[in-house]
């Protein structure tokens, strides 16, 4: 992951995400005193956000950087496509959909070229699922600072409704040869991003996606078509996909050896750690929010697991001494963001808020210490430990355990 300076202004603007009427008027946008006394604006071919709403990603680094989703500004589980996080290794390519082609070859009966129209002619499927960069949460593990927002801690996860063709459908068409075990997915970006994926994922739920939240993919998300391997680390969901080569073993590309492998404390490193384990983060209250007074507050957040459904989320409002189940917004979908809510009466004292997700495999989100025991302090991906927000007596909220 590329680290770089994040301006405090960008950060606070992103965290607030909304503007006041006076600011808008200063910017030349008239806001009537009484909207019932003047006709409103006419119909238009393309809707816009209310000018009062200014949610923004936070871009870090240039070219092959990251841009984080403002989790604290979202409601529900879907991430608007223009706020979906970005991570790419050599910029966003411009691809003409008329010239776009996907090649499937290697251990197949019929090496085949598909254009976008051909891909769309196959029976299609839609599903909601999250996509998360495996480096998400890096600062909460290796660079804990009180002034981290939900966006800066965990903004490399987003949920969309994806539409496309199942890889199993395409693979039946090309005829996979016996003995095949893996396939290479390769992008048409300047990094020619390449990852090896076990063939079982193709028979399970992998797809070539061309639709996102009711429209074509955004360029940053792989326009016109990308691989989607639900529940697996973001990098394996190769964007701008142009080639799939089927083989009997993995290819050992740079992105699955030098990068996206996990050093362990026993002096080994884990290869092909695809699945994103269960995780949750409270998005309210969180830095830089200040609670104006004690009393009723709804704690809110997101939970997800790359292995299936979130079974439960427990919340602690006393630094982990007691836990109680949060309410999960239905429907809870497999491998998808799940919103949780917990009604809390703040007594006005210093305390720490925690959330802990469990998934349907029986996996429970570990503490920071448990994860460090298992992975070591030097590991670089898959930081799914419990996050903490400390609420101070004056109502300010900061990231991490205090004291």
């Amino acid at each position, binding site marked *: 992951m590329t680290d770089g300076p994040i301006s405090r202004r960008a950060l606070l603007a992103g965290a607030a995400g909304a503007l006041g009427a006076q600011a808008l008027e200063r910017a030349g946008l008239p806001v009537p005193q009484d909207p019932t006394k003047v006709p409103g604006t006419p119909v238009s071919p393309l809707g816009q956000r209310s000018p009062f709403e200014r949610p923004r990603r936070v871009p870090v680094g240039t070219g092959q950087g990251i841009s984080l989703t403002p989790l604290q500004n979202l409601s529900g589980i879907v991430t608007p496509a223009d706020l979906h996080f970005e991570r790419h290794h050599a910029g966003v390519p411009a691809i003409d959909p008329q010239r776009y082609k996907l090649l499937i070859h290697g251990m197949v009966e019929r090496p085949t070229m598909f254009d976008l129209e051909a891909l769309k002619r196959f029976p299609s499927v839609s599903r909601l699922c999250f996509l998360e960069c495996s480096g998400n949460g890096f600062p909460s593990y290796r660079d804990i600072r009180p002034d981290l927002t939900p966006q800066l801690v965990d903004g490399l996860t987003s949920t969309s409704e994806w539409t496309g063709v199942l890889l199993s459908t395409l693979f039946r068409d090309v005829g996979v040869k016996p003995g095949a075990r893996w396939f290479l997915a390769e992008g048409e970006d300047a990094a020619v991003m390449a990852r090896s994926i076990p063939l079982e994922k193709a028979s399970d739920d992998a797809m070539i996606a061309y639709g996102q939240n009711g429209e074509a993919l955004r360029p940053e998300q792989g326009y016109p078509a990308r691989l989607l391997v639900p529940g697996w680390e973001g990098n394996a969901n190769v964007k701008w996909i142009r080639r799939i080569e089927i083989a009997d073993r993995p290819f050992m590309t740079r992105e699955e050896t030098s990068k996206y492998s996990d050093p362990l404390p026993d002096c080994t490193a884990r290869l092909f750690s695809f699945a994103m384990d269960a995780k949750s983060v409270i998005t309210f209250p969180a830095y830089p929010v200040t609670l104006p007074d004690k009393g009723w507050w709804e704690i809110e957040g997101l939970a997800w697991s790359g292995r299936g459904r979130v079974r439960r989320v427990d919340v602690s409002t006393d630094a982990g001494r007691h836990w109680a189940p949060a309410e999960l917004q239905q429907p809870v979908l497999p491998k998808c963001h799940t919103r949780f809510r917990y009604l809390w009466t703040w007594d006005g004292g210093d305390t720490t808020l925690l959330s802990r997700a469990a998934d349907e495999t029986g996996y429970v989100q570990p503490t920071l210490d448990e994860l460090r025991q*298992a992975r070591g302090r*030097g590991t670089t991906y898959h930081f799914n430990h419990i996050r903490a927000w400390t609420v101070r007596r004056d109502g300010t909220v900061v990231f991490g355990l205090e004291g």
Partner: protein
Amino acid sequence: MSLRTLAAILALALVGSTCGRAEKGEVRVAAPTRYGFGRPATAAEVRAWDIDVMPDGTGLPPGSGAASQGAAIYARKCAACHGKTGTEGPFDRLVGREPRERFPFGRDPRLVKTIGNYWPYATTLYDYINRAMPLDAPGSLKPNEVYSLVAFLLSRNEIIADTAVMNAATLPRVVMPAHDRFVTDTRRGGPEIR
């Protein structure tokens, strides 16, 4: 059972259930095994895009290069981003061996991964430089240039001799220092934290 037989059985099963439950006037058709919407890819099309290189050398093109030639290309095309000796940055450090006889990346957050101390396969170096470097002109290097740069970086990492020539036969035989350190993912869900 062949895929075709399986599909036939599935088709029958579908038709069968349709007869039982279909609304009046509803017609459902069984999905075929193949739709045939793509078109055959030509050998030339496959060749143009098939750039990957595997650990056994599959995919390596003809050509060769040695460290001395690589040094000159490196100075011109790579040093600005990776440093004069591959250690100065500003981008990824390419040269460095871990003097400790261990592999303490999990334990030591300060340790920087390099080709010499972390990469398991030498062939990956060819594959990656060829597909993605230099960052500002990706895909611009000829096979002899890539082999030369690979030889240069492997020799600077003290993995091969300064004079060794890298080609499709020699490169797959280079054993990387960290080769035996890599294990498969044992996480499976369930209560254990791994």
